[in-house]
């Protein structure tokens, strides 16, 4: 794939606005403020477009987002949308059941955009497959959750489950699509994390504002483009971190022979020299990005090792995330690190689970029971722990947690004991950050085939996230980049508290 970064020249941006735009430097060498002395400030040239100023468009409910993404496609029926009719008609062909009308629904033709038409996967499976796990009602809300979520189900009254999601790619390009809102055939676009990063100012100048934890989406399915900013510019890309204080990212320290003060002075000089050069080259957008990248790098090398130092957490907290058990430890570490990042003011933490270098571990074309039982066990306790921890610390109100996957799985069986990809109906949930708890919103039909009530395309999740963060996606437009209506989506008002 061509992954050319698409840094746009700053059309119409003159030298002064450019300089006003570049951060504040290392020691408050505020060329920006110097310039304001001669009466030039951004916004003075009112006709010209300016990038967002970092202030929300309206009062935000949430400060940060933790975005948990299950790679490969988790079954909605065996998680948050159980369907007893599957047990009733197990083994029957859909056409021989009272639910045969699902096959005539217009969604199949209208919504689906197939990339690989004759792939072995991505088909409608006719023979209904019974639920592979039990389920029951939980909490005061009585929302049904499968038994593979024994910890998370206890937090159900904090969750708003959206059971009526749909997407258009029946293959794993849907992973990319879930983050950009566009079908993979359309190409690469800014991801939801990069929009938040682009739209909002920083809460902590020492950390990247958009962090990626866990192995990202594989090359097959969008790769790095699943956390990139594309035309918003590379300074808005998500930055992958390892939860390892010694080596959270490559070249994290200059080595013991260097003094901190010595290096700081170097960075200050570098900043001054780059700014002098920037005056010579006002059109150089990469220069602006590089100046910012050095400012951030300087502070990151101090702050990042600290923020991923999980040892400083109490044993009780570590246990809450399952750090004391092998099964839950890897994802638990990511969830705990996510909380620490959010606590330190990171705006968007994108946590991936289930990378296997290909389509993703959740892609249970066969042996769904073993597969999902195992994977749910890896994430259930850490996610529940994250919600509990955020709540205990009073952070849940302003931290929006999103649990998502690229599509659901077919009501019918594939390979005797698996389920195929299913873009027509699936579930996502959100919690905290001004979202109502204990809500099941929208629904699929009785066999979990189509989203039927309150249908939502993936960008409705994006719009809801932006809305809770105080942003209106339509006001984040970039000149020369025409966006489709479907890219904006609509906030899901019914689940907003």
């Amino acid at each position, binding site marked *: 794939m061509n992954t050319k970064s698409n840094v746009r020249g700053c059309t119409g941006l003159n030298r002064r606005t450019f300089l006003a735009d570049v951060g504040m430097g290392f020691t408050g060498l505020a060329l920006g403020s110097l310039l304001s002395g001669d009466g030039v400030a951004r916004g003075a040239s009112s006709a010209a477009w300016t990038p967002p100023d970092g202030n929300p468009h309206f009062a935000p409910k949430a400060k940060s987002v933790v975005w948990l993404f299950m790679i490969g496609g988790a079954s909605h029926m065996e998680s948050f949308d159980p369907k007893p009719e599957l047990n009733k008609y197990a083994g029957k062909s859909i056409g021989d059941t009272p639910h045969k009308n699902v096959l005539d629904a217009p969604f199949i033709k209208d919504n689906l955009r197939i990339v690989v038409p*004759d*792939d072995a996967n991505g088909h409608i499976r006719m023979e209904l497959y019974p639920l592979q796990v039990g389920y029951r009602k939980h909490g005061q809300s009585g929302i049904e959750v499968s038994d593979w979520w024994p910890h998370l189900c206890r937090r159900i009254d904090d969750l708003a489950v959206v059971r009526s999601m749909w997407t258009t790619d029946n293959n794993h390009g849907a992973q990319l699509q879930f983050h950009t809102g566009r079908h993979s055939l359309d190409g690469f676009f800014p991801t939801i994390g990069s929009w938040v990063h682009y739209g909002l100012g920083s809460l902590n100048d020492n950390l990247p504002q958009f962090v990626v934890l866990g192995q990202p989406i594989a090359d097959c399915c969008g790769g790095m483009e699943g956390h990139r900013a594309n035309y918003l510019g590379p300074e808005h890309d998500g930055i992958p971190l390892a939860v390892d204080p010694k080596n959270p990212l490559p*070249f994290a*320290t*200059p080595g013991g022979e260097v003094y*901190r003060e010595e290096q700081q002075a170097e960075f200050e000089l570098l900043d001054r*020299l780059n700014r002098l050069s920037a005056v010579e080259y006002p059109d150089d957008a990469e220069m602006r*990005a590089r100046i910012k*990248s050095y400012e951030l790098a300087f502070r990151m090398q101090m702050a990042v090792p600290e923020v991923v130092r999980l040892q400083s957490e109490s044993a009780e907290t570590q246990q809450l995330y399952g750090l004391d058990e092998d099964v839950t430890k890897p994802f638990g570490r990511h969830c705990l690190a996510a909380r620490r990042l959010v606590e330190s003011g990171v705006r968007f933490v994108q946590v991936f689970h289930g990378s296997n270098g290909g389509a993703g571990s959740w892609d249970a074309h066969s042996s769904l029971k073993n597969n999902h039982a195992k994977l749910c066990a890896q994430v259930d306790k850490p996610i529940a722990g994250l919600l509990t921890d955020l709540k205990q610390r009073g952070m849940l109100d302003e931290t929006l947690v999103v649990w998502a996957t690229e599509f659901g799985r077919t009501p019918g069986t594939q390979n005797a004991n698996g389920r195929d990809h299913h873009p027509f109906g699936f579930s996502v949930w959100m919690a905290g950050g001004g979202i109502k708890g204990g809500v099941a919103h929208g629904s699929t039909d009785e066999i979990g085939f189509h989203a039927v009530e309150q249908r939502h395309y993936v960008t409705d999740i994006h719009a809801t996230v932006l809305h809770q963060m105080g942003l209106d996606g339509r006001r984040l437009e970039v000149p020369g980049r025409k966006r489709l209506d479907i890219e904006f989506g609509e906030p899901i008002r019914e689940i907003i508290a």
Partner: protein
Amino acid sequence: MLVRVGLLICWVVASRSARGAEPVDYVRDIKPILSSRCFACHSALRQRSGLRLDAASLLTQGGKRGPAIVPGKSGESLLITAVTGAEGWRMPPEEEGDPLDAEQIALLAAWIDQGAKAPDEPIPSDPRSHWAYQSPERPPIPNVNNRAWVRNPIDAFIAAGHEKHALAPVADAPKHVLLRRVYLDLIGLPPTRAERDAFWQDKSPDAYRRVVERLLASPRYGERWGRHWMDVWRYSDWSGYRDEVRYSQRHIWRWRDWIIESLNDDKGYDRMVVEMLAGDEAAPTDPDTLRATGYLVRSWYKFNRDVWLDQTVEHAAKAFLGLTINCARCHDHKYDPIAQADYYRLRAFFEPHEVRTDRVPGQADVIKDGLPRVVDAKPDTPTYLFIRGNEKMPDKEHPLAPGLPDVLSDGLEIEPVAMPLEAYYPALTPFVLDETRNQADADVTQAVAALTKANEALEKDRSRVAATGADAAKPDPSSDPALTARVHLAEKQLAYAEAKRASLAARVEAERAKYKLRPYGDHAHWAKTAGGLERHATLCGAELSVLQAEQALAKAEAADKPEDAKTKKAVTAATKTLEDARKKLTDALTKTSSEYTRLGPVYPATSTGRRTALARWMTERDNPLTARVAVNHIWMRHIGEPLVAGVDDFGLRAQRPRHAALLDWLAVELIESGWRMKPLHRLILMSNTYRMRSDAGDNHASNRRIDPDNHGLWRMNRRRLEAEVVRDSMVHVAGNLDLAMGGPEIDQNLGQSSLRRSVYFRHAYEKQMKFLELFDAASVNECYRRSASVVPQQALALSNSALSFEQARLLARRIPQSTDAFIAEAFERVLSRSPSAAETAECRRFLTEQEARLTDATQLTSFDGEKSSRVQPAVTPSLRARESLVHVLLNHNDFVTVR
């Protein structure tokens, strides 16, 4: 059957009429049916049976079988006959899809009967007329008004574009900017101080031209552009789990060296394509040429032949032809006139090829060194289409011959290539024969020496025993039976070595006779002799094994301790080994076959010639794609943006580019210069287009308004250095780059310590240098175009890496001047320019303050962690401050930017 269908139609039509007899509407009712059920085979893209249904007028026009419809008469319309299956055949064919349902058929019939009315609609154009499928012709050079600006034909094309779009080209780049640009561009290294001075002093109008010529002649050119082509050709060293090779092959670096050498020699691109795809057929006994087939070897994949061939097919098409034929693996191409079968026909060119590693002089063990190359080892393997791309469902009814999509070729002739003996029987290569015989001699010499030594030891011991007056009645006068055993063993070893040597000599004679290599003797005689001697050698070997096993057993028994399970186990194991050895000995004794073993693997004496035919077709003058695709790659790497945006997809989705005429002119120029690249480089570099500034300052508001993205090239594009250039330049400006060329790949983990050029480091799946990866080094699997990100991790890599500190320190120590001269010299060396007054002032202040800071180290805090650099900071605060300054300049945005 017919009757029933007829009735059905009547019923459906009746039921529709009952609903209100509304007329059938072509756009609303008919076109969607045709589009969803018929277009796949009967539209512009694929006109099966010459029939197109993608416009109403084309239905009347019909195909080879005549008109598809007769307006007003559905009963006489072929379309209805076809979809109802009324004459025993049906459309769509059974294997292609379900029949149309009754209502659809009724609608079609009703529409025809109502007169087949349709609004005027455009007839979609024939994909065969796509611009990129037409052979490039040299277009006339445009006449332009701005003649003063035109230095060569490239400028004429660009200027014509300027004038058409009311763009005004910016001024030439300043001398220092141009010099740095052309150095980094051609050799991937900035100019040295001396090179800058020389250019500055050369006042002749030819100064720039001379620089270009010198750089094109520099061996560094091949290294720089070699890396570019390694991106396109997917260079990858071997990788796998521990020592197990899973991808590519060991010693593939020989192909990398071939790339670099070929570019430096200005070998024609056409020849390079032939050598990479079919070097084994073009020059079967030339090891230098055989290296080129590393291009194919690179796709070797241990676990799945289909994945291996898929990669081969996909990337040969993308790299050389700009065709996304991989889209046709499971189904016909969605956009381009490429059928699914075309994908497998292309595969058929590669079906017979396999990978082998030839010996190189001086090394018999091909794991340690060797020449990986391809060979048509399986000439008879058929190629099948995989139904829906599923390798478990080969269509064995229809084996496919090598071929190309109709749109590109009328068919090509494939001539098998007879291989010389050495090529298909590498063990008979003279140096291999010599080394094998020498080794046999050496084995004998060694065995003789061992026996002599063993006898001496025994004699010595006997003398010792005799001298001490041992009991003569003892049967063995020796005190140490181990020494006797050693002699026995050495005797057997010598016997075996001699038998092997004799057997080898006879086998060589037999093979010489068989292949009539002068001088040769009687084949029957030598074959018989060789068979006998080989049997004898086997016997000697078996006897040796038995003796070794017996001695081992005796030793184990002697060491056996009761109650010790470990020693028991050793005895059991030794017993078993002895039994096995005895069995082999019995086998050897009873073997009567007179056949001898060949001297090594023997490959087919004829290569299929398929890959040669493919490569020749690709590099024919008329091939519409090859030269254009190559020119586009070269242009992009000089100018920063390609002429055709999708460098690996020239199919129907690639619109005719803005500079199509220039592309064609350059493509023809490449072909007519004998496909040599250096003339093309020269042309681009000498153009005014290339020499423009990359920035527009505050001027050129109109240009910016009309063409903000510089599609019309009214200025040069600014670029970020590629990963390798960042690293190499850092070492080079400090004067420390090791310019040794070629050889085995260097461990990627040595990237911070070895000072070789980056191109020579291991580059494989999960084995890439981290520093390079952070600066967007090529993805191992495919990289037709690099990205250029700006992220904080790059800042950390440049500012915190041991390499940047070391090089900064070393360079600072090389510049002994006074403060201002030091600053100026550091700027010159690192950024290839002088500092401005403001910059000098900043740096001067920095040096003073940093020195003061470092003077009292007690006030300073060290970073955590170990000292990581081999070159520690200077002790003197003033020098250490200077090192800091150079380090800052290596991190300057201008250092990683080509302006």
